[in-house]
């Protein structure tokens, strides 16, 4: 969508020269055809070295075998399914552990994005109406300041279980205090994934809240008052006026969170290492590369991860541009 209409072509060529004669421009100011490339060069070098080359290299490695020494087709085992050159992708897309990862990543998206956005919106809306707003927001935002590894370690103590001796986990302390038996939280499939997602929500809610709170502040007070006089209850005001008005921001927050969640690695790595059914795509990629030293599979997983993220990325950038255009 172009905000600025291209100017009508002006047909004055009969009276005016189509373009200034080169001789009229002083020599120092004359631009050679190469000049624009010169300006672009630093960025092009950086992009080539750090984005384009690694990207192409990864794509290439994803088609090679474990050590990159031969094409992936050589890994095929007779009598077993084989995708030839795309053998690594067969692993990345169909192996049980990767299927588990896809399902877990989907769970992460559904639970964590919903959790952070809903909680963020709720807290932003409620904080907007209290006197100690700044303090409340600061506390909610605080986990953002902790590294994910740090957060993982902290929460591992909360979920800690010991087979023998005294229980030191906070959660088990609560369970025992309520008369239950201690549980090895990190080993119970699905429960452990939800438990790690909870840590993610704890960290990221502050981010969603901050962005959404800024959008809420942008809703003029008179519009809210007009709606109240018009007959809206506080709930109708929220659902019918506030949410539609900040919808562009909510969309951006959702897509940003989807991208963040798709890339999730640190929390899983620290808390379970991807064991007990908590595996996610990024952690699998790491494991293939640095535990199994299988460059081919790791590269294929990386390519798959990028392909999954790109649509969300494109959507996000578009939305962002549209918003900038409105301003």
């Amino acid at each position, binding site marked *: 969508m172009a905000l600025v209409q291209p100017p009508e072509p002006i047909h004055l060529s009969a009276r005016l020269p189509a373009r200034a004669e080169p001789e009229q421009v002083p020599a120092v100011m004359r631009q050679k055809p190469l000049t624009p490339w010169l300006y672009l060069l630093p960025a092009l070098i950086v992009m080539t070295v750090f984005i384009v080359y690694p990207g192409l290299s990864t794509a290439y490695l994803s088609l090679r075998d474990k050590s990159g020494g031969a094409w992936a087709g050589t890994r095929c085992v007779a009598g077993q399914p084989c995708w030839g050159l795309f053998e690594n992708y067969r692993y990345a897309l169909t192996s049980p552990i990767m299927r588990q990862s896809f399902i877990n990543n989907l769970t992460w998206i559904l639970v964590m994005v919903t959790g952070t956005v809903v909680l963020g919106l709720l807290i932003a809306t409620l904080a907007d109406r209290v006197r100690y707003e700044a303090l409340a927001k600061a506390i909610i935002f605080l986990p953002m300041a902790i590294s994910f590894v740090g957060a993982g370690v902290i929460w591992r103590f909360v979920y800690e279980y010991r087979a023998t001796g005294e229980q030191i986990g906070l959660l088990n302390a609560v369970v025992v205090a309520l008369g239950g038996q201690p549980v090895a939280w990190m080993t119970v499939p699905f429960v452990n994934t939800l438990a790690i997602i909870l840590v993610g929500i704890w960290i990221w809610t502050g981010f969603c809240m901050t962005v959404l709170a800024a959008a809420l502040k942008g809703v*003029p007070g*008179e*519009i809210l*008052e*007009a*709606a*109240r*006089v*018009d*007959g*809206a*209850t506080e709930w*109708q005001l929220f659902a*019918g*006026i506030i949410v*539609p*008005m900040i*919808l562009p921001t909510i969309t951006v927050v959702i897509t940003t969170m989807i991208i963040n969640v798709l890339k999730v690695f640190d929390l899983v790595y620290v808390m379970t290492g991807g064991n007990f059914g908590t595996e996610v795509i990024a952690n699998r990629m790491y494991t293939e590369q640095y535990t199994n030293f299988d460059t081919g599979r790791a590269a294929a997983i990386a390519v798959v991860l990028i392909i999954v993220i790109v649509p969300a990325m494109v959507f996000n950038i578009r939305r962002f541009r549209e918003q900038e255009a409105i301003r």
Partner: protein
Amino acid sequence: MASVTYDHVTKKFGETTAINDLNIAIEDKEFLVLVGPSGCGKSTALRCLAGLEEITSGRILIGSRDVSNVAPKDRDIAMVFQSYALYPHMSVYDNMAFGLKLRKTPKSEIDRRVKQAAETLGIGHLLGRKPKQLSGGQRQRVAVGRAIVREPAVFLFDEPLSNLDAKLRVQTRAEISKLHQRLQTTFIYVTHDQVEAMTMASRIAVLKDGVLQQLDSPQNLYDLPTNVFVAGFIGSPAMNFFDARLNRGNGKLVVDAGTFSVTVPENKAGPYQPHAGQNVILGIRPEDIHDPNYSPPGIHQALVSARVEMTELMGNEVFLYLTTGDKNYTARVDPRSQARIGRDIQVAMNVDNMQLFDKGTELAIR
């Protein structure tokens, strides 16, 4: 349709008193304008009536119902805001229909009312547009339309014209007056513009520092201001004030303003008698100071020497900025006047229309 009563209403924000013991009885179908300088509490008074502010003490009645603790949505009022406060994500149609939808009005009835209101306001062709695609004047109409479709008992306007350009403002002013004629509903209108107040109101309430100064018809407010503040606030250019002393001489009362003095006409002297010998403030409107050559016949006039500091030709009249002694004042004289900058001239003050105010209380002496 309903009357509105402010009964000893006080509103405090922390230590600050925004409205102090306000008592106004607004009749059904009346067009009441609340006017005053910024910070006088006029908007707060309106917002209290709308239910957007809680009152600290007193009561507000709409009809005979005490609405002091009733939510805005249940007060049967509609309000037009200064910023128009249109819902940016809704079309003009939906903006106008929003209040009715919330009240579960049947679709056909909503459609009828919205279209009728849009037709009246000349925005029928804009119903599908978003507020962003409208001009300021069109937005203002949508805001009014949104209020009309609700068919409320009382319409509230909070400086609805202040975001329009001068020409559109005059035009819209007349349209709102017409609307009031047609709807036959109570209108309460807040403005800081005394011209808006004078032209539209059936009665005007002048507020200052949260205190009601005077509540009267526009003409009475102009002719018989109750105190120095109202006298100075209503009318443009503002009334001239002179510190003076009321003296008795030769059986007549004379207002001695130091550099000049005027004799009080017999017919006005009565109420002034008890104040003889006291300090007073003499108030005289610019249009009551004439060029003696063109002063209307049959008035009691007092001639005063003055120096012309500035002139402003308006076409149908000339504003003279005059000095007598060290006192500056304004006159509004016939355009044929020969007064020029720097000249010493004689001006004729029409003493029939002069006002005297008590120096201490600043209240009019009547």
